[in-house]
C-alpha cells in the first residue's frame, strides 16, 4: 500500500472560510509543505457536488489519503465518510474562524492558525495507513448467560427472540433465582396498588420451551478464555464432567446474595426466631398462601409486625455494614405489610424508615399501602430487645423522642450483596520478590470466581465500588472493562425485578452488538465500527509489561516468551497501550506516535522575538474536543496561539509527544482529558487517570531541559465546560507571558 500512497488536500471556502482566510495561501501550503499531489478548493465542500469531486479523485485518480480542511472532525461525518481511504480533518471552522474575532489586528494570527491546521492535516495523513479489519476475528454468535434468575432468563429470551442461540448456565438445580422464592412481587402494571403474581413459573416454562436456549443446571464456569466472537468456556457440571463450548459473547447475570443478618444481633437477629429478614418473610407468606401469617417461634398468628428499614445498610461508619441503599427494600417492605393487611386488616403493621424511597410507580404503591392502613413511622431504630416479647426501641424523628413499640414479628430490610466473584484488584495487589519480579498473592483472593477468566488481569470483572461488578455507569451502563462480557441485574448495582428486566434487555443488545462487530473484525464500543487495531513491533519490545498492566480492558495477555499478546477482539482502541509504551513500538494504522508527533512538528513555531508563543493542546476527542468545538459554535474567543490536536483518549498520550513539543519550541502543553477517579467520566475508564499519573512524573524531564514545571498542565474537562476551556487556554498564554518564552525556539 505504501508505494501507492497518493495524498490529496481539499480546502473548503464555505461557512465564511473563503471570506476570512486566504485560501490560495492554504493551497500553496498543502502543495509545497504538505506535499499533496492533489490540492483543490471548493465553495461548499460538504455539498453533493463537493463530495462527488472528492469521490471522483478517489475512484479515478487513485487518491488514497484525504486531508479535508473545512470544519471540525465532529461535523459532517456522514458527508466525508469514504471507504478504504485514510482521512484527516483540518479544523478551520470551529477551531479557527469561529473562535477568533473578525478584526483587522487578529487577521494575521488567524491566518497563521489556519496555515498550521492545514500543515497538521497534511502531516497526519502522510503518517496514516488505510485501516484494515482485524484478521484474527471470531464469528461465533452464541451468547452465554451466567445465572438463571430473572435477569439471566430475560437476557436469554431477548437474545433468542433476536435470533441468537443461547447457552444458559445456572449453578443451582432450578431456574428462577430470588424471584422464584417470592410469594408475590411488587406490581409492575396499573394500578400499582397491591402485590401481584411473580409470573416466574410461566417465564421458566417459556425459557425451557425455547429451542434456541439450552439450559445447563447445576453448572459453573471453570474456565473462560478468548475474545468476543471467539470465547471458549469450560462448563463444569454436577456429575464432575466438563464440557467445552465456543461462545460469541457473555452476559453475567450472577445476581446478588442477601446481606448476612447475623451481623445484626443488636436488632435481635439470632436471638429470637421471630426476628427475620425479608427473604424469610417471603417463606412465611408462601406457607400461609394468603391466610394468616404465623410467627416462627410458636406458630401464633401475627397480630403486630414491625419492619425495620435500612437494617445494616446505608452505614458508611461501620465496615461490617453496607454503605449503600439497596433500592428495592422500601417497596418490598410495603408489599410484605400488604400480605398482612390483605389477609387481615386488623393486623398492626408498622414500617420504621429514615427515608422512604419509592421511585417511579412505587409512589402509587406507597399511597396504596397508606390507604390499606400500613403505618409509616420515621425513626431510627436503636435496638430490638428480645425479652419474651419483641420491643423495638427507636427514636421518632418527627416527634423527636425516644420510644418503643411491641411487635409479634420483626422484619429486617437487609439489602443486596453482589455476587460478583473475586475482587481482582485486591487479589492482584503486587508485591515484589527478591528478583524484582511482580508476584500476585493467591492468599488474598476471597470468594469464588464466577467467570474464571484466563486473562492476565484477573479471573473476574473488575469491581467498581462496594463490590459491584464494573460497568460504565455514566455513559454505557452495561459495558464492563472486559469486552464481550456484559454484567446485568443486581450484580451491577442494587435493583428490583423491573429494573433487572430492563437491564437484562440492554445487556442482551450489547452482547449482540459485540458479536456482530466481532464478525466484521471491528471494534465493539465505544468506538463502534472502528477498523483499526493495535499492533506492535516485536523486535523493539523490551518486555516491560506496561501495556499489559495498563490496558484498562485486560485485552493484552503475555505469551510464553513474555511478549505482549494482543487480543484485538477485546481491544477498545483507546490507545492506552500506545501511550504507555516507552519504546513506542505500539501503533494503529491510522493513529500512532507518528500521526500525532508529525502534526505537532508540522506547526510553524515563530522565533522568540516575534512574541508569538505556541501552546499545544492535546484534547480528548470525547469530551474536551467537543467542548472546544462548542466554544467555537458559541463564538467564544480564545488565544490564536493555541494549536489543538485531538487524541482518542488522554491515556494514549505518549510522553514523547510532550518532550517533542518542548524540544520544538512550544511554550506550553495542555492535556485535556475527562474526569477520573471513582466518579470517572473517561470513556475508557482508566485512560484519563493513567495519563494524570504519567504526567505527574514528567516534572523531572522538564527539569532536565531547564524548563518550568507549569509549562505542562493536565486538566479534567467535561463536555459541558464550554466556557471553561477558552479560559484555560487564555490563562496558559498569560502564564507563558509571565514566565517567558521557551528557550527552545530555533
Amino acid at each position, binding site marked *: 500500500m505504501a508505494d501507492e500512497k497518493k495524498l490529496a488536500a481539499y480546502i473548503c471556502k464555505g461557512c465564511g472560510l473563503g471570506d476570512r482566510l486566504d485560501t490560495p495561501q492554504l493551497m500553496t501550503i498543502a502543495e509545497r509543505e504538505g506535499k499533496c499531489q492533489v490540492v483543490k478548493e471548493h465553495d461548499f465542500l460538504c455539498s453533493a457536488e463537493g463530495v462527488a469531486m472528492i469521490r471522483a479523485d478517489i475512484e479515478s485518480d487513485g487518491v488514497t489519503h484525504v486531508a479535508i480542511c473545512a470544519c471540525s472532525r465532529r461535523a459532517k461525518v456522514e458527508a466525508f465518510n469514504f471507504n478504504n481511504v485514510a482521512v484527516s480533518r483540518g479544523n478551520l471552522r470551529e477551531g479557527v474562524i469561529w473562535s477568533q474575532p473578525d478584526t483587522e489586528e487578529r487577521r494575521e494570527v488567524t491566518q497563521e492558525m489556519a496555515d498550521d491546521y492545514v500543515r497538521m492535516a497534511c502531516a497526519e495523513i502522510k503518517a496514516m495507513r488505510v485501516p484494515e479489519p482485524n484478521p484474527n476475528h471470531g464469528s461465533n454468535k452464541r451468547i452465554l448467560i451466567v445465572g438463571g434468575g430473572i435477569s439471566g432468563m430475560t437476557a436469554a429470551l431477548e437474545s433468542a427472540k433476536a435470533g441468537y442461540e443461547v447457552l444458559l448456565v445456572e449453578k443451582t438445580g432450578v431456574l428462577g433465582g430470588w424471584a422464584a422464592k417470592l410469594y408475590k412481587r411488587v406490581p409492575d402494571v396499573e394500578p400499582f396498588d397491591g402485590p401481584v403474581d411473580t409470573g416466574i413459573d410461566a417465564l421458566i416454562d417459556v425459557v425451557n420451551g425455547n429451542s434456541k436456549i439450552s439450559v445447563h443446571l447445576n453448572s459453573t464456569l471453570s474456565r473462560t478464555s478468548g475474545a468476543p466472537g471467539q470465547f471458549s468456556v469450560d462448563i463444569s457440571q454436577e456429575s464432575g464432567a466438563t464440557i467445552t463450548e465456543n461462545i460469541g459473547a457473555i452476559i453475567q447475570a450472577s445476581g446478588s446474595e442477601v446481606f448476612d443478618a447475623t451481623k445484626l444481633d443488636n436488632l435481635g437477629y439470632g436471638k429470637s426466631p421471630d426476628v427475620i429478614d425479608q427473604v424469610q418473610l417471603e417463606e412465611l407468606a408462601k406457607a400461609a398462601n394468603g391466610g394468616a401469617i404465623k410467627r416462627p417461634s410458636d406458630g401464633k398468628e401475627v397480630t403486630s409486625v414491625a419492619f425495620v428499614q435500612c437494617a445494616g445498610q446505608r452505614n458508611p461508619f461501620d465496615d461490617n455494614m453496607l454503605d449503600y441503599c439497596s433500592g428495592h427494600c422500601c417497596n418490598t417492605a410495603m408489599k410484605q405489610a400488604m400480605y398482612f393487611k390483605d389477609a387481615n386488616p386488623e393486623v398492626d403493621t408498622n414500617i420504621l424508615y429514615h427515608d*422512604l424511597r419509592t421511585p417511579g410507580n412505587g409512589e402509587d404503591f406507597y399511597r396504596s399501602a397508606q390507604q390499606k392502613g400500613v403505618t*409509616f413511622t420515621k425513626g431510627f431504630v436503636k435496638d430490638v430487645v428480645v425479652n419474651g416479647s419483641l420491643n423495638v426501641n427507636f427514636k421518632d424523628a418527627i*416527634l423527636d423522642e425516644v420510644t418503643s413499640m411491641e411487635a409479634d414479628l420483626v422484619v429486617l430490610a437487609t439489602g443486596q450483596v453482589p455476587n460478583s466473584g473475586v475482587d481482582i484488584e485486591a487479589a492482584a495487589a503486587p508485591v515484589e520478590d527478591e528478583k524484582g519480579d511482580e508476584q500476585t498473592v493467591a492468599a488474598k483472593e476471597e470468594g469464588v470466581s464466577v467467570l474464571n477468566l484466563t486473562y492476565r488481569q484477573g479471573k473476574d470483572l473488575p469491581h467498581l465500588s462496594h463490590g459491584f461488578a464494573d460497568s460504565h455507569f455514566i455513559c454505557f451502563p452495561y459495558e464492563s472493562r472486559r469486552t464481550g462480557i456484559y454484567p446485568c441485574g443486581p450484580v451491577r448495582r442494587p435493583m428490583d425485578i423491573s429494573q433487572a428486566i430492563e437491564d437484562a434487555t440492554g445487556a442482551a443488545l450489547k452482547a449482540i452488538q459485540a458479536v456482530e462487530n466481532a464478525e466484521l473484525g471491528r471494534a465493539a464500543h465505544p468506538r463502534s465500527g472502528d477498523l483499526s487495531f493495535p499492533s506492535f513491533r516485536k523486535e523493539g519490545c523490551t518486555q516491560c509489561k506496561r501495556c499489559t498492566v495498563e490496558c484498562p480492558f485486560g485485552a493484552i495477555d503475555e505469551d510464553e516468551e513474555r511478549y505482549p499478546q494482543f487480543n484485538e477482539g477485546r481491544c477498545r482502541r483507546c490507545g492506552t497501550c500506545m501511550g504507555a509504551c516507552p519504546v513506542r513500538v505500539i501503533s494503529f494504522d491510522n493513529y500512532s506516535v507518528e500521526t500525532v508527533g508529525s502534526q505537532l512538528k508540522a506547526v510553524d513555531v515563530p522565533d522568540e522575538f516575534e512574541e508569538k508563543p505556541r501552546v499545544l493542546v492535546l484534547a480528548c476527542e470525547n469530551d474536551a474536543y467537543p467542548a472546544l468545538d462548542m466554544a467555537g459554535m458559541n463564538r467564544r474567543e480564545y488565544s490564536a496561539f493555541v494549536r489543538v490536536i485531538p487524541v482518542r483518549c488522554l491515556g494514549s498520550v505518549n510522553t514523547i509527544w510532550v518532550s517533542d513539543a518542548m524540544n520544538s519550541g512550544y511554550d506550553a502543553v495542555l492535556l485535556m482529558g475527562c474526569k477520573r477517579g471513582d466518579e470517572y467520566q473517561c470513556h475508557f475508564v482508566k485512560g484519563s487517570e493513567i495519563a494524570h499519573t504519567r504526567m505527574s512524573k514528567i516534572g523531572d524531564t522538564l527539569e532536565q531541559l531547564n524548563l518550568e514545571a507549569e509549562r505542562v498542565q493536565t486538566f479534567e474537562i467535561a463536555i459541558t465546560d464550554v466556557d471553561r476551556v477558552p479560559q484555560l487556554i487564555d490563562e496558559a498564554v498569560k502564564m507563558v507571558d509571565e514566565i517567558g518564552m521557551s528557550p527552545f525556539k530555533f
Partner: protein
Amino acid sequence: MSNSNAAMVEKYRNNFLKEVEANVEEGDWVKMCMQCGVCAGSCPLGNAWDHPPQEIFMMIRAGKREDVLTSDSMWMCTSCYNCIVRCPRELPITHIMHGLANYAHRLGIAPKMNPTRRFAKIFWDNVTKTGRANELKLSISLYFMDGIVAGIKQGLEMLPMGLDMLKTKRLDPMCLISHTGIKDTKGLHAMLKKAREIEDKRKGLAS
C-alpha cells in the same frame, strides 16, 4: 373527664388513628400523610403552633390521644388554605384541623380558655339564635366575655370607632332591641337539632 370522652377512650382503646378516622371530619386522610413537612413550612402562623399539622398527624398515628386533643395547635388555624394547596398528597389539612378542634370541643377536653374556641362558641350561639348574625350583640358578647369590668374597659376603648361607624351608618343601634332574624327560626332550630342527633348517633357521642 367528660362522659363522652371516657366512652371514646373505652371504645377505641389504644387505636387513636381509628377513632380519628371514624369521628373527625376528613379524619380518613390522616393516614395518607407522608411526613414531607410542606404544610409545616407553609403555615403563616406556623411558629405559633406547638405541633405543626405534620406532627399532629404523626402523633395521631403514634396514639398520642391526650396530647393531640388537648393541644391548642389546631385552634390556631386561620383557614388560609396554603397547606391544602401545597400538600403533595392532597390532604384537606385545614378541614382536618377544624375537624380535630371540633371533636376535642365535643368531647369537652379542648383547652377551655382558648380564644378561638370561645369566639367560635359565641358566634355559633349568636348566629343560630335567629338564623342571622347580630353584629352589635356579637361585639358586645365578645367585649364582656371576660367579665363586666373588662367589658366596659374594652367598650370604652372601642368607643371612637363605634361612633364613626354610627356616623357612616355601618352600625345600627336598633339591633339591640329589634333584630330581624330569618322567617322560620323554629324550623332552623329543629334542623340543627336533628343534624346533631344524626351526627351524635353516628359517632356514638352522648349529647
